């Protein structure tokens, strides 16, 4: 197998369309390099464009100088630089500007909400203390003396406030982990409730106690204690509404990625649509393999080929019957006896064989590389001081022997954009430090992992939009479908209710397990 066949010119950078063509088999050494944005349709029968030799396109240089050099990784590193010479399409400009403006706008909204809540919380917390202290400050001499009973109440107020403080800290003082489109209904409800509550208490206090300068101090302290009790109950309500209600699973949610059909199922409780979307996205980063646009080009080119090459002639005269024309095209395309299924089959079989071969070479190379490294025991360290290396140096020492096999494997599985040489070296020194076997080192490269494993720049999915026919603050119901869109793909979420299970019992007495021998004798007489 010649080396030229397994090199693909890949695009990395903001215009993430990667050209590839396995059609190199049939069309010789032509290299396709579409300089347009990915929305343009490509006909496979078009003229091929030769790449100009001075293109600083990452990955291309390696393909040409591949023979013999292992340490050319620096040129093939997928570092995204702003000085890339290829043109940025309209889409990319839109995306960049969107990223910038969104990050500024939402911060203000987030901090405003937090500030309001914090101020309200502080006021609420200080209210009982104010209730107790104000009479002492304003009309101390008129107050009835109140001995042990009041002291007991003071202690209980103090401890209840402490418990409230700890509980509020535990429940509410958290870094906000997401920006959601609409307000959190239950939170707003609770804030309003607290506000009304405290307001009515102050009203009562102001009218009945401050104005009339009530002298029954014990009554006043008991009033403050009742406020603290009520606040504790509101805190309990907050726990139930915000934390506990959604724990019991009521719905099963199916999430399908639109580009490659990868799907997962999750169990959710009673949540609003936006909260459910948050849960789905948190799980998306952990469970779904990373979105790789390089893997989608084959089906697109097949689809383009299918409809290309058919022309419609309007024989019956003028009259632009567009729908009729397209229907005629579809019918003709369906009837056309093409052998694209054959091509697909052989292409896939070929690709698989190639991947397996590369993988075998890679595994052998890595195993051999790891045998060169041996961890020194404590005593041995004194004996050979000159040759000792720290993990980073050890990694750099064995890296060249496996670099080429790894590079080829990543190219074949189209993962080369996700791993730069620096990241590979880091991972290698990490594995060496933690005594991992070659297989453990390779686990990261052999199969595409979840999105979280990779560098943030390669995610293609940071800004999400929730598209829903129902209001996003309404609760989940059976049959709801909503879509989480980011620029390159979308996640379609389908909600189904967990069925009502009828479980009945049947009691079996352990003594009722009795057995009988089934005979079948034949006797001759």
């Amino acid at each position: 197998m010649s080396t030229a066949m397994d090199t693909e010119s890949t695009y990395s950078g903001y215009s993430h369309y990667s050209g590839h063509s396995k059609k190199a088999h049939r069309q010789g050494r032509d290299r396709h390099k579409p300089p347009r944005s990915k929305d343009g349709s490509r006909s496979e029968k078009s003229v091929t464009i030769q790449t100009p030799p001075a293109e600083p396109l990452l990955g291309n240089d390696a393909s040409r100088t591949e023979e013999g050099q292992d340490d050319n990784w620096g040129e093939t590193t997928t570092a995204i630089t702003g000085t890339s010479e290829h043109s940025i399409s309209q889409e990319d400009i839109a995306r960049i500007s969107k990223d910038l403006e969104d990050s500024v706008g939402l911060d203000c909204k987030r901090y405003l909400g937090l500030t309001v809540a914090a101020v309200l919380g502080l006021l609420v917390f200080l209210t009982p203390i104010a209730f107790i202290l104000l009479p002492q400050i304003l009309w101390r001499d008129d107050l009835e003396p109140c001995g042990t009973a009041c002291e007991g109440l003071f202690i209980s107020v103090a401890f209840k406030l402490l418990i409230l403080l700890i509980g509020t800290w535990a429940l509410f003082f958290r870094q906000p982990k997401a920006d959601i489109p609409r307000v959190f209904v239950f939170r707003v409800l609770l804030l309003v409730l607290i506000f009304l509550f405290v307001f009515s208490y102050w009203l009562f206090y102001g009218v009945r106690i401050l104005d009339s300068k009530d002298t029954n101090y014990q009554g006043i302290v008991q009033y403050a204690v009742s406020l603290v009790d009520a606040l504790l109950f509101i805190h309990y309500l907050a726990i139930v509404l915000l934390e506990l209600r959604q724990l019991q699973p009521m719905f099963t949610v199916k999430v399908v990625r639109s580009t490659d059909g990868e799907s997962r199922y999750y169990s959710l409780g009673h949540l609003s649509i936006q909260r459910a979307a948050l849960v789905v996205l948190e799980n998306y980063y952990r469970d779904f393999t990373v979105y790789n646009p390089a893997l989608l080009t084959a089906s697109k080119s097949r689809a383009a080929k299918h409809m290309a090459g058919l022309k419609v002639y309007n024989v019956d005269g003028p009259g632009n019957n567009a729908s009729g024309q397209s229907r005629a095209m579809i019918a003709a395309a369906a009837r056309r006896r093409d052998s694209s299924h054959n091509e697909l089959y052989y292409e896939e079989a070929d690709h698989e064989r190639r991947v397996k071969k590369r993988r075998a070479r890679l595994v052998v190379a890595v195993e051999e590389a790891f045998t060169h490294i041996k961890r020194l025991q404590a005593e041995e360290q004194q004996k050979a001081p000159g040759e000792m290396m720290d993990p980073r140096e050890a990694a750099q020492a064995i890296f060249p022997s496996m670099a080429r096999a790894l590079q080829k494997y990543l190219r074949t599985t189209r993962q080369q954009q996700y791993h730069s040489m620096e990241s590979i070296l880091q991972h290698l020194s990490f594995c060496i430090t933690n005594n991992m076997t070659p297989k453990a080192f390779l686990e990261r490269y052999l199969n595409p992992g979840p999105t979280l494993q990779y560098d943030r720049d390669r995610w293609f999915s940071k800004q999400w939009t929730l598209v829903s026919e129902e209001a996003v603050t309404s609760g989940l119901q059976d049959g709801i479908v909503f879509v989480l869109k980011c620029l390159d793909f979308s996640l379609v979420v389908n909600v189904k209710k967990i069925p009502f299970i009828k479980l009945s019992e049947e009691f079996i007495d352990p003594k009722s397990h009795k057995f009988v021998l089934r005979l079948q004798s034949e006797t001759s007489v």
Partner: protein
Amino acid sequence: SHFTFFSFQQRIEIHKLRQGDNLILGFSIGGGIDQDPTQNPFSEDKTDKGIYVTRVTEGGPAEVAGLQIGDKIMQVNGWDMTMVTHDQARKRLTKRNEEVVRLLVTRQSLQKAVQQSMMS
């Protein structure tokens, strides 16, 4: 018209053959109330726990007398054989002091033959 009930039964008289110390009849039986009726290949009704003839020795007294494989033995010398255990059936057939046994057997082919002759 009146209905006449035919009994699809046949009487077979077997003369036992002496072989050394034993008197043999030349066939094998299967079935019995202590056996598993579902494993009987000859019965039409798989809950039938009667005694069936499972094998007939060639040239033996039973074959000579006209006993066929698959026959259900209803009586032996007047003793009922429809509700006996396997061992009881064996004992009733192999009594040492009897040289002749008279069996009342029923047979599916017999039933069908009579039915066909009735219809034609």
